[in-house]
């Protein structure tokens, strides 16, 4: 049953059928039986055509609205756009309110825009394992631009940069001064800083403060700053120009990024596999520690000793 389901999904991916993509994403997200076969196929058949941009930044910075306008301007140029929009899942219920579409409602009827909302499903901010895999699915289609809108920004959220060509960090005045920007480690991941809501009175000062702190970075590595007002589309054409320019430069780094990414992916994958295999054993052995037969450290060493690496 499941084997034929995988075959069917692979066929739909090959036919570039849109609902096939939607179904394949669900299949991967739910980790259904046969997902390895589907992913192997998707990885082998992906194309390098699309420019992939990651849009990140704190909640309320206007990421979704910005993405909405970027889509609009790309559509004017006739580009096909795929969007991966991530919102947080509740760690308590596993439920999620995925609201990125609210800002992108204008593209609902456009068949050349494929927007898919993802719950973060237990990953700490940024993009989940499922989301990363789904990017390979998107790359089996003929999108000119793929946008990953990831939630929030955190100190450990540097991973996204290896999955995208261009990283856009969206910030807004009033979110703290330039010190906050320096703290969050955003400088290292951003190729482009968008100062959104630039019509706010304090925007100019914020922009200058940021520009000042960025000047410590050598010019060839320095993120480019763009001022936008996403709601009125001010600065969006300029942003697109910068994205294209940076994209061209970053494409040459694809091989280097791919190397880091593949290593990281294999590592996560291996640990996930080991974890699922050992889960039962850990549960059983934990009882021994609980009843005082051994210390947790002895048990850990014993379990780790069972992994034989030739």
């Amino acid at each position, binding site marked *: 049953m499941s084997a034929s389901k995988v075959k069917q999904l692979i066929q739909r991916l090959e036919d570039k059928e849109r*609902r096939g993509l*939607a179904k394949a994403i669900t299949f991967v997200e739910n980790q259904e039986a046969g997902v390895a076969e589907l992913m192997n196929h998707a990885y082998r058949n992906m194309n390098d055509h699309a420019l992939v941009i990651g849009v990140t930044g704190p909640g309320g910075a206007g990421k979704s609205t910005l993405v909405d306008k970027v889509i609009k301007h790309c559509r004017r140029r006739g580009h096909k756009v795929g969007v991966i929009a991530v919102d947080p899942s509740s760690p308590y219920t596993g*439920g999620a309110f995925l*609201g990125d*579409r609210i800002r992108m409602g204008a593209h*609902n009827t456009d068949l050349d825009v494929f927007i898919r909302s993802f719950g973060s499903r237990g990953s700490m901010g940024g993009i989940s394992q499922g989301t990363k895999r789904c990017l390979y699915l998107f790359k089996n289609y003929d999108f000119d631009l793929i946008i990953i809108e990831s939630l929030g920004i955190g100190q450990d959220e540097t991973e996204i940069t290896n999955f995208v060509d261009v990283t856009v960090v969206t910030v807004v005045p009033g979110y703290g001064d330039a010190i906050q920007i320096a703290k969050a480690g955003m400088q290292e991941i951003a190729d482009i800083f968008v100062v959104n809501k630039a019509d706010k009175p304090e925007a100019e000062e914020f922009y200058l403060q940021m520009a000042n702190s960025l000047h410590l970075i050598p010019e060839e590595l320095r993120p480019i700053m763009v001022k936008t007002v996403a709601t009125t589309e001010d600065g969006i054409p300029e942003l697109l120009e910068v994205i294209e320019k940076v994209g061209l430069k970053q494409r040459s780094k694809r091989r280097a990024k791919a190397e880091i990414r593949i290593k990281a992916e294999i590592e996560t994958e291996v640990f996930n596999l080991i974890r699922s295999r050992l889960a039962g054993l850990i549960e059983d052995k934990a009882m021994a520690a609980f009843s005082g037969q051994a210390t947790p450290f002895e048990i850990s060493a014993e379990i780790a000793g069972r992994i034989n690496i030739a």
Partner: protein
Amino acid sequence: MTKKIRVLIGKCGCDIHERGALTMLNVLRDNGMEVIYTGRFQSEAGMVNAAINEDVDVITLSDLTGSLVIICRKVLEELKKRGAEDIPVICGGLLTKDDIAELEKMGVKGCFATGSPPQGTVDLIRQLAPSN
């Protein structure tokens, strides 16, 4: 395998009343579902395209202008046009007894008039979601 129920909440046409949609959004989320909200003022064709791309298990339509019969009919037509009539549609909002009879006749799988306890919707969605 970790199957998660995905639900689209949508509002079509010129209805500003959002409270019902927002309430259900919270209820469904707190019941462990992934809820995608389209926002207001959408078209039926857009609703169906969103439902297909998001691969939702159920489409829920909220409306408080008394237009659910019109909206649901158009959504069902669009689903057929896109070959996605396997996605069940339910609705909630301002409904008369006649509306409900007509909606059920056209194939809407559940109707919740104002004042319905939210748990009924939760239970129905769990029932309608495939393989649950």
